[in-house]
């Protein structure tokens, strides 16, 4: 008998009509996996819970600065008793960091986390977005009187950022030292010991960290410029800050590497501009106040005449100065008279020529009649104006020469080689910086934080820590799932 022909009916007859009452392997697998996987997920979270580790609920990796707190969620996420919510608050931040205010007259203080966004992986917390700054500075308002700052700053662009303050109309270089950059950079300049030299920018301008000898300077001696000297580089309080001024530096920032050393006679000028005062001597007067110089001269000449009494008899004037009285030849001095005469001559040379070459001297006294008695202090000495050479031209911004060392000086200071007037302000303008610092992936950082610090770190208060390292490490060593 041949096999029954296959039809749908014959095929259907083969089926056990109660097949659906029995579980199929496929359904069993589906059910088992549907139970097992959620259970596995719960077990995974439970493992974190047993370890008292809430890291599983983190929204992302911590910044390098806070990476040690990765498993210490409670360090920042502090919950209050009876409340479920445990958001990170300013209070938690301030328990480890002081966050000095920006300005006393600011009208708005953002929360820490609104600018320093955590859980975004390996990023600098200080690298805040421009919007954090422009939320106020785009239309700046201040408590009380109108602010002295530019009130509309949107971004570091020509139309979004004002020109730097020293280059704005009305700004005057506060420095009083007479310097002609063009002459100093000329070839074949007469240098120390009559040699011909070609000066370069770094003969006078070097970053603070540079610990090299200066080409036209002197080794530090007792004659080194005292800090109290009005001729020392210093700045008027307030507007232009000296390097050491403790203002607005974030903790990570080292001005010692960032700024040029202050210009100093002993380091930069003495090689070519010795303060000689008499052919009898090879040394210079100290680069100090007129009072100190006067005392030095009196002592120097007193000592000299004590060992050279023959010079009390003077045949003729050896110094051809226009204001020098015609000597009666031969003339015999008393020691005191000789000293007074020589001091008067030397001071006349210094006040009217040597010092005046660079310094602004006020009320230079006329050549005094030679007093009979030695003068420990003359009636009138000139006043030397403070040099006021700015060390930091941008007191509200930071700059790092070290970071820009790849560039030649004239890339940013092109007028330095041709400037003849002391009043020329040679700092680069906004457009110069913008050539590199602008938006885009192929540009240097151009956000506000690159130059400006929000917190006034001069107001930073010490914080007393409360965490215990040992307890942290015990928790950190626990294995996680």
């Amino acid at each position: 008998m041949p096999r029954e022909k296959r039809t749908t009916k014959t095929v259907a007859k083969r089926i056990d009509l109660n097949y659906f009452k029995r579980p199929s392997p496929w359904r069993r697998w589906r059910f088992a996996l549907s139970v097992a996987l959620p259970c596995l997920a719960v077990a995974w979270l439970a493992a974190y819970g047993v370890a008292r580790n809430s890291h599983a609920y983190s929204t992302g990796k911590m910044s390098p600065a806070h990476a040690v707190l990765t498993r210490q969620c409670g360090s920042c996420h502090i919950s209050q008793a009876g409340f479920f919510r445990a958001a990170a608050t300013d209070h938690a931040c301030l328990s480890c960091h002081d966050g000095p205010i920006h300005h006393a007259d600011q009208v708005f203080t953002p929360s820490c986390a609104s600018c320093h966004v955590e859980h975004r992986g390996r990023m600098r917390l200080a690298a805040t977005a421009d919007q954090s700054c422009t939320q106020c500075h785009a239309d700046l308002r201040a408590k009380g009187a109108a602010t002295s700052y530019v009130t509309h700053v949107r971004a570091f662009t020509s139309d979004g950022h004002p020109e730097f303050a020293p280059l704005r109309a009305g700004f005057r270089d506060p420095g009083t030292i007479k310097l002609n950059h063009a002459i100093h950079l000329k070839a074949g300049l007469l240098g120390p010991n009559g040699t011909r030299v070609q000066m370069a920018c770094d003969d006078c301008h070097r970053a603070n960290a540079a610990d090299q000898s200066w080409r036209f300077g002197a080794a530090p001696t007792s004659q080194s410029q005292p800090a109290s000297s009005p001729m020392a580089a210093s700045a008027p309080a307030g507007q232009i800050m000296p390097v050491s001024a403790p203002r607005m530096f974030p903790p990570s920032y080292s001005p010692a590497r960032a700024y040029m050393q202050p210009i100093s006679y002993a380091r930069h000028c003495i090689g070519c501009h010795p303060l000689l005062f008499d052919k009898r001597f090879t040394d210079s007067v100290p680069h100090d106040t007129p009072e100190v110089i006067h005392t030095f001269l009196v002592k120097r000449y007193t000592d000299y005449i004590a060992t050279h009494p023959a010079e009390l008899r003077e045949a003729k004037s050896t110094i051809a100065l226009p204001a020098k009285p015609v000597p009666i030849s031969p003339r015999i001095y008393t020691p005191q008279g000789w000293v007074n005469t020589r001091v008067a001559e030397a001071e006349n040379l210094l006040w009217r020529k040597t010092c005046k070459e660079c310094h602004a001297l006020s009320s230079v006294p006329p050549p005094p009649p030679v007093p009979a008695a030695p003068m420990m202090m003359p009636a009138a000495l000139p006043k030397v104006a403070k040099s006021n050479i700015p060390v930091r031209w941008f007191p509200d911004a930071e700059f790092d020469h070290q970071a820009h060392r790849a560039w030649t000086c004239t890339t940013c200071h092109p007028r330095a080689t041709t400037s003849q007037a002391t009043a020329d302000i040679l700092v680069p303008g906004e457009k110069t910086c913008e050539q590199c610092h602008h938006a885009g992936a192929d540009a240097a950082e151009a956000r506000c934080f690159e130059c400006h610090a929000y917190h006034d770190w001069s107001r930073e208060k010490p914080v007393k820590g409360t965490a215990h390292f040992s307890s942290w490490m015990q928790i950190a060593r626990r294995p996680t799932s």
Partner: protein
Amino acid sequence: MRIDSTHKKWLIASLIIFVVATAVYVPYAAESPYGPSGASGIGLTFGIAGFAFMIFAGLLGARKRFPVWRVGRAQAWMRGHLWLGVLSLPLIFFHSGFRFGGPLTAALMVLLIVVVVSGVFGAVLQHYLPTVMTEQVPLETIFEQIDRVRGQLLEEADQTVARVTALVAPLVTAIPTRVAMATEEVAVITEADIAPLGTFYDREMRPFAEKPDARGYALADAARARAMFEGLRTLVPPAVHESVKDLEDICEEERELRRQVRLHHWLHDWLLFHIPLSFALLLLGAVHAVMALRY
């Protein structure tokens, strides 16, 4: 389920939602100082919408389990499951700002991607394979009954061979006999005549039918099987050809069953990933929603 013109409304609605969400996300992401965040108002809205779509997609299982619920046709639920489930992926990406975040959120993102990708993969398979099944397995049976049907086929094959053997049973003496039929004289069938059939059955066909998971059998290939059966027919008397045809049909049916098993696995095995991972995703998603409120 075939993705046909009945999906048009769902497709258009999904596209509109996606375009609107993208139009909201792009400027929001561009203007966010620190990038988009799930905690922001817009980010939270994306998260809620995405999770709501996930829950809706997950409710399809409940809808199937309780078919008497008057909450819309199962077909409509299936379409919603498909399109809103797919839509949940971009919405959750918008919610997270395309970041995977910490351990839990990273696990959620991976789960969501696997669930959606496996779902799309399954939808594509379920769009094309039923047609292939109809063409290649005309006598498709219930998957769970395949082993039972296969047993019946093997039994039928054994019976067919037994019937042929029965024809020569009286001839065991090996004396050629002429079997007189009703009207005509038929060829004499000896044991030697049917020996090739027995050998073929024992060595090729029975192992092939007995071991459905085994590979390498010539009978698994239709063309080779046809050639083998053609050769067998030349070796056995014509009286046995009918039985050979029956055996050939059984082999063909066995091949169809194998094809059905293979297609069935393609059609349904992805659900072994899709469904359990969906449960895990919904569970962890709920935990994430609660813990996000805390932190």
